[in-house]
């Protein structure tokens, strides 16, 4: 007797008790849906956190953490910019690195006519623009000639325009930054997000910044790799290179992605464990429901079993019939649960602004797991059916 034969038989006997079958599936549907939702939202969240840390452009920040000896030897070490211009050129030679985004920030003062205000002035290299870090709303962004010629042009934050020009258009105005005239060519977008109030900022081409402050060192360096996989390698190579150049052991560092991934993994693991056990319990209860209904079904169909045995069904064939019936029941429940979970995860992530990922592994897992439940909880009823005595079964009313 073939599998498809058994499947058709199972489907028709489940169809004969539609309501009962659906109610029995409910536990499985909810259990599988819960698993899908948890995993989808968990994996989506993990993916989101990862992109937040690495940035969407596969970037990683370098930082300088001097050792105790270095700090003792040079108490002013924190006042100095840790990255030299030659460092940047050397970093650019590393094959895994696509761009080296470098900038230097100094607190300074800006004057327009009679008003003076404290601002943070940031000199940026051209890669900074290429990474799309500056979103210009009014006016224009820096051009290549601004960078190469060290032109006295600047871009100000929207907060700067608001406070310093009282909302008037700042583009075209000339302000004095550290007593040097700078023409405002652009105003940045207002930062979005609830917690960003914006700050008083002026951005300058690095050449210009250097001419004003007389320093060619960078305070911040961000590396961009061609791909996420290369990011870690690029970061390690960069840190090694800088430590070699500065004769330091491990003062130049990148954020260790593996550690962070592990940390995130730990959190999601705990979350998955908690909700997974809830889903497990609901699946277990669902399985008991399946077993209960299958036992009822076996009792109700005692006569059918007797007839089948009289016509030549072996005990094995009767066992298979009922086992396939319970697996079909849980499998349909599992598939419905996958769709329910998928839909719910999509809706939830839509409103929560949190991505959801339903991977094929999870779907496959859901299908296989619901089938396993069908086998495990169907075994007892199926075994009971196969052990029936044909004569007594035929007499059963």
């Amino acid at each position: 007797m073939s599998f498809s034969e058994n499947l058709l038989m199972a489907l028709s006997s489940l169809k004969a008790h539609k309501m009962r079958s659906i109610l029995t599936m409910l536990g499985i549907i909810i259990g599988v849906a819960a698993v899908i939702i948890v995993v989808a939202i968990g994996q989506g969240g993990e993916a989101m956190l990862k992109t937040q840390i690495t940035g969407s452009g596969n970037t990683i920040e370098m930082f300088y953490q001097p050792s105790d000896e270095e700090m003792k030897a040079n108490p002013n070490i924190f006042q100095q910019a840790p990255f030299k211009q030659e460092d940047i050129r050397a970093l650019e030679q590393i094959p895994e690195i696509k761009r080296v985004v470098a900038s230097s920030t100094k607190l300074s003062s800006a004057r327009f006519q009679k008003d003076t205000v404290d601002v943070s002035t940031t000199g940026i290299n051209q890669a900074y623009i290429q990474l799309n870090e500056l979103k210009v709303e009014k006016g224009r962004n820096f051009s290549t000639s601004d960078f190469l010629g060290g032109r006295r042009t600047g871009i100000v934050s929207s907060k700067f325009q608001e406070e310093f020009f009282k909302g008037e258009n700042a583009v075209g105005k000339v302000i004095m930054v550290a007593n040097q005239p700078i023409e405002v060519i652009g105003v940045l977008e207002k930062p979005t997000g609830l917690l960003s109030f914006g700050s008083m900022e002026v951005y300058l081409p690095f050449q210009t910044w250097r001419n004003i402050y007389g320093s060619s060192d960078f305070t911040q360096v961000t590396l961009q790799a061609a791909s996420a996989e290369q990011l870690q390698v690029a970061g390690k190579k960069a840190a090694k290179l800088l430590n070699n150049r500065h004769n330091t052991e491990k003062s130049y560092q990148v954020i260790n992605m593996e550690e962070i991934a592990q940390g995130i993994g730990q959190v999601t693991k705990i979350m998955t464990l908690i909700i997974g056990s809830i889903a497990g319990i609901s699946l277990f209860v669902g399985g008991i429901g399946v077993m209960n209904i299958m036992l009822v079904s076996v009792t109700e169909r005692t006569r059918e079993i007797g007839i089948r045995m009289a016509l030549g069904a072996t005990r094995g064939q009767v066992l298979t019939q009922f086992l396939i019936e319970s697996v079909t029941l849980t499998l349909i429940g599992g598939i419905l649960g996958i769709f329910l979970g998928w839909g719910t995860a999509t809706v939830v992530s839509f409103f929560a602004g949190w991505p959801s990922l339903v991977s094929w592994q999870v779907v496959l897992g859901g299908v296989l797991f619901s089938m396993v439940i069908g086998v495990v909880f169907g075994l007892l009823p199926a075994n009971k059916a196969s052990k029936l005595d044909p004569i007594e079964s035929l007499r059963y009313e």
Partner: protein
Amino acid sequence: MIRLESITRSFLLGKESVHVLNGISLSIQSGEFAAIMGPSGSGKSTLMNIIGCLDKPTEGEYYLGGENVSHYNDKELARVRNQSIGFVFQQFHLLPRLSALKNVELPMIYAGVSKKERQARAEEALMKVGLADRMNHLPNALSGGQKQRVAIARAIVNQPKLILADEPTGALDSKTSMDIMEQFRELNAEGVTIIVVTHESEVAEYANRTILVRDGMIQSPAVLDRGPSI
């Protein structure tokens, strides 16, 4: 075809064992049409169940077609029921959710016959019992006589050498009963061995041999020969 040697069958009721069959020895030749008669509770059905390999004797040997089946295991007995024996019951025992055709297909499913062949052979069997126009009806939509014809079609579809009918006309009126017995007579004429349990002498008259059972024993082992059937 059938040889029973000192068959006993006893059941345990609590601590007491009830002896239902008390040493039955019996031979039935291939092609015979035998009627088993006897009072209610005398052990006719128990005997039929043993002959039909639905039950095993407590003691004694049972040879079917030359093979000793008294020590067969469950799986071997299932194969014998499927291949060598056709059952017809008083209560018809059709599966209510399957059409006449699907009911007739059942024994072939367990014989591993392909779907196409199954349908063809089931149709053929139903035509043979005169139900060509009722194939797709559910049992509930059929009369008692028609149900019993479906059961007969189901019994013959695997072409067994032996058909066992335990009071096949017990739930039918006398006119329908005679139609059903006519059906058995035709099958017997084709060489199928038939054993029928009955209370009614009109039914027993279709057989060419009557076996009387009383208190689990064969009362008169003498063959009441009525000459060849038909």
